[in-house]
């Protein structure tokens, strides 16, 4: 077998850091009463279980199932249930990533709770170097836990795909959340045990195309290149090379530029009034435009969509419409106008029998994104430097004093925040968050309290 790969020590190694039960761990940081208690976090509108603490997992709570199906079990095991609090999770994620950056400047944030780190291979014999890597990883793990309260596991290997595979090993007893697969004498034996469907980037459907002797990670790596290409194409071949220790997935410090941007939310309760849909779509459009400006992008087409998809009786439909702008823009008024035009085309109030559509979701998609500068001039769209100045001011105000400090009337004019900024009322189309925890790190009114 050709695993593991090259005999000479690689110049650099890849460390995958991933947070354990991240959302549940975030809830625990500010509520020590949750230590040792099963904790689960629900998806938007309290729909499904999207995160479980180890205690919840051990008690058989399933992942991704609707909350109502597990309600009894959760009560029986004394679990604490939370609505997702993405404000808190995003801030804690930022803190974890910033802590990782104290260890190496080469951090690729892969998702809200995962990052790849590129580290130089320590000098010395592979065995010594491996020991040094694991000692370093234990130190980093302790630092993240101490600074943020979030437990992580760290897996080190020569490629991203191998690091992904190795992260399961970090959970084995005695390893304390750290494993270095590189220079591990058992690496080949381990990879021969990993089912190929557990390999990063190999779907169950493609695995079924592989011959029986390639149903493990080691088996796939040992397979003939031509055969791999036949079964899985060039993407699968890349995965196989990565398993052999040849890095094929580049290390990316900055995320790849996006080509489209979607903003949508399900409603807490069904919405039938067009005015409410317009408010929701306008709010998504304005936030999307703000995001475009923050990323230095502009859109050439704007789409709006509405859907009744989800639970409930009544007629179902999904409607969407795209509006081509003819120019690229990231100005809110232009995107708003196009989004509301799209909504007008996508929306229908009732089916032919006159039964009203009870919408569960609305959103905005910005298509055909291009860099905002240099701007392509357009015959029928005068340059409007004052609009850009307006946006700078708008974005600065909303960043500094909070969302909806200054906003467009199409987003709905009913007050959302009380004058003293301590209480908030939500619009009809807001998400349902019955079990929300405080936004401990981003709101003065929500700080954790300590007894004195």
């Amino acid at each position: 077998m050709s695993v593991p790969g090259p005999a000479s020590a690689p110049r650099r190694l890849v460390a995958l850091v991933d947070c354990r039960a991240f959302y549940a761990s975030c809830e625990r940081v500010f509520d020590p009463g949750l230590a040792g208690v099963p904790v689960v976090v629900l998806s938007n509108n309290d729909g499904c279980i999207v995160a479980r603490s180890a205690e919840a997992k051990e008690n058989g709570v399933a992942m991704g199932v609707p909350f109502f199906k597990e309600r009894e079990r959760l009560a029986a095991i004394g679990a604490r249930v939370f609505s997702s609090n993405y404000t808190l999770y995003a801030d804690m994620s930022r803190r974890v990533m910033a802590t990782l950056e104290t260890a190496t400047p080469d951090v690729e944030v892969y998702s809200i709770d995962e990052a790849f780190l590129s580290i130089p291979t320590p000098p010395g014999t592979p065995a010594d170097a491996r020991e040094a890597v694991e000692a370093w990883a234990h130190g980093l793990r302790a630092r993240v836990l101490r600074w943020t309260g979030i437990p992580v596991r760290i897996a080190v290997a020569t490629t991203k795909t191998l690091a992904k595979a190795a992260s399961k090993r970090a959970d084995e007893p005695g390893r304390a959340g750290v494993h270095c697969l590189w220079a591990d004498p058992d690496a080949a034996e381990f990879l021969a045990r990993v089912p190929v469907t557990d390999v990063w980037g190999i779907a169950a459907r493609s695995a079924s195309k592989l011959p029986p002797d390639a149903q493990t990670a080691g088996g796939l790596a040992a397979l003939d290149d031509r055969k791999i290409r036949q079964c899985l194409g060039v993407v699968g071949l890349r995965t196989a090379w990565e398993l052999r220790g040849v890095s094929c997935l580049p290390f990316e410090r900055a995320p790849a530029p996006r080509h489209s941007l979607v903003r949508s939310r399900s409603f807490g309760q069904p919405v039938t009034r067009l005015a409410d849909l317009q408010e929701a779509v306008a709010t998504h459009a304005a936030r999307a435009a703000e995001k475009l400006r923050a990323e230095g992008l502009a859109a050439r087409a704007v789409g709006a969509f509405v859907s009744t998809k989800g639970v409930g009786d009544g007629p179902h439909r999904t409607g969407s419409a795209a509006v081509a702008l003819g120019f690229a823009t990231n100005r809110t008024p232009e995107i708003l106008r196009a989004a509301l035009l799209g909504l007008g085309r996508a929306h229908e109030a009732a089916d032919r029998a006159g039964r009203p559509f009870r919408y569960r979701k609305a959103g905005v998609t910005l298509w055909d994104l291009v860099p905002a500068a240099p701007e392509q001039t357009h015959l029928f769209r005068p340059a409007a430097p004052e609009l850009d100045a307006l946006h700078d001011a708008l974005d600065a105000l909303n960043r500094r004093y909070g969302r909806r400090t200054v906003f467009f009337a199409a987003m709905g004019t009913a007050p959302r925040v009380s004058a003293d900024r301590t209480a908030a009322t939500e619009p009809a189309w807001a998400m349902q968050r019955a079990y929300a925890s405080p936004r401990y790190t981003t709101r003065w009114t929500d700080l954790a309290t300590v007894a004195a």
Partner: protein
Amino acid sequence: MELRPLAPLAITAVWPAASFAPAAPRPLFLARVRAGFPSPADDDLDTELSLDDLVRGTTPQATYFVRVEGHSMTDAHICDGDVLVVDRAREPADNDIVIATLDGEMTVKRLRVRRTRGETHVSLVPAHAGYAPIPVRDGQELTVWGVVTHVVHAVR
């Protein structure tokens, strides 16, 4: 670059200006300027002061705010309703004011560590005559959540 093992709790980070939300820069007005009479200090103006600079420390990613409820620390200038700046990167030491979790609750107290005849005795000491020190007994789990570095107190 050389890979050195990190001392788990040592602070060696050289930290770039990470955002320290929520930022609250306050302009500092030194003097009123009369029209027509340029201030001689105009050439020496600095950028406005930010309260963040006073409390930021070297590890903003490990700095948190919490709110005080209760009166047991008033002699240490920590009052009901105050906001505390807490650094989780700082190694707790004897006599530090800390946020400790004891029996599932977060509390702010002075940490006292005494070693007598090879045994370590840890207690949480209030700063108010009406409250008694809390000794940490065997079997009780005490975790230091973070070390208090600053108090934000409104003088009404």
